[in-house]
């Protein structure tokens, strides 16, 4: 069973890695961020597969952290929109 799970982890890595092509192609920042989102989910899946395959349950906590912070980059992206101004508007005329 561990061999199968390791192979599955490698395959998920390969697939999410291919998805990273979207980070290179774009065209919009949203597309690039989607690659990061896919990697976050895929990374969680890889961590879970390796945790069970190797019997290291502590690795599950990595997937837990990734899951909690998965939406974080997407939220932060909306901060970076052109024309967004902070409330104080300092230094931005």
């Amino acid at each position, binding site marked *: 069973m561990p061999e199968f799970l390791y192979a599955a982890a490698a*395959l998920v890595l390969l697939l999410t890695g291919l998805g990273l092509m979207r980070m290179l192609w774009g065209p919009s920042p949203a597309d690039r961020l989607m690659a990061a989102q896919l990697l976050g989910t895929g990374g969680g*899946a890889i961590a879970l597969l390796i945790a069970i395959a190797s019997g290291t349950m502590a690795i599950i906590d990595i997937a837990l952290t990734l899951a909690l912070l998965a939406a974080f980059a997407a939220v932060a992206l909306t901060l970076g929109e052109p024309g967004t101004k902070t409330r104080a508007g300092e230094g931005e005329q």
Partner: protein
Amino acid sequence: MSVVLDAFTVITVTAGLVFFLAGTVGLLRFPDALTRLHALTKADNLGLGLIVLGLLPQCPDITSALKLIAIWVLVQFAGASASQLIAQFVRRNEPGP
């Protein structure tokens, strides 16, 4: 019994891999950002969900099994919110039809 559980794991994890494949192909091949987002959410919800389901019988204790389920629920929720946020971002920046 163990053979049945192992077979269950192999089948569900493989199905999960298929959805990750679908997510990647969609992300790379779909024509615009919103459809690509749809592909991404497939991988989030079903790919990870099936892998979690497949790993449940392999968990050595109930705590890790519960953690696995918690992770899936969190990813479902965070993924759904994130895709909404990204979609709103796309709509604001590229006014579509």
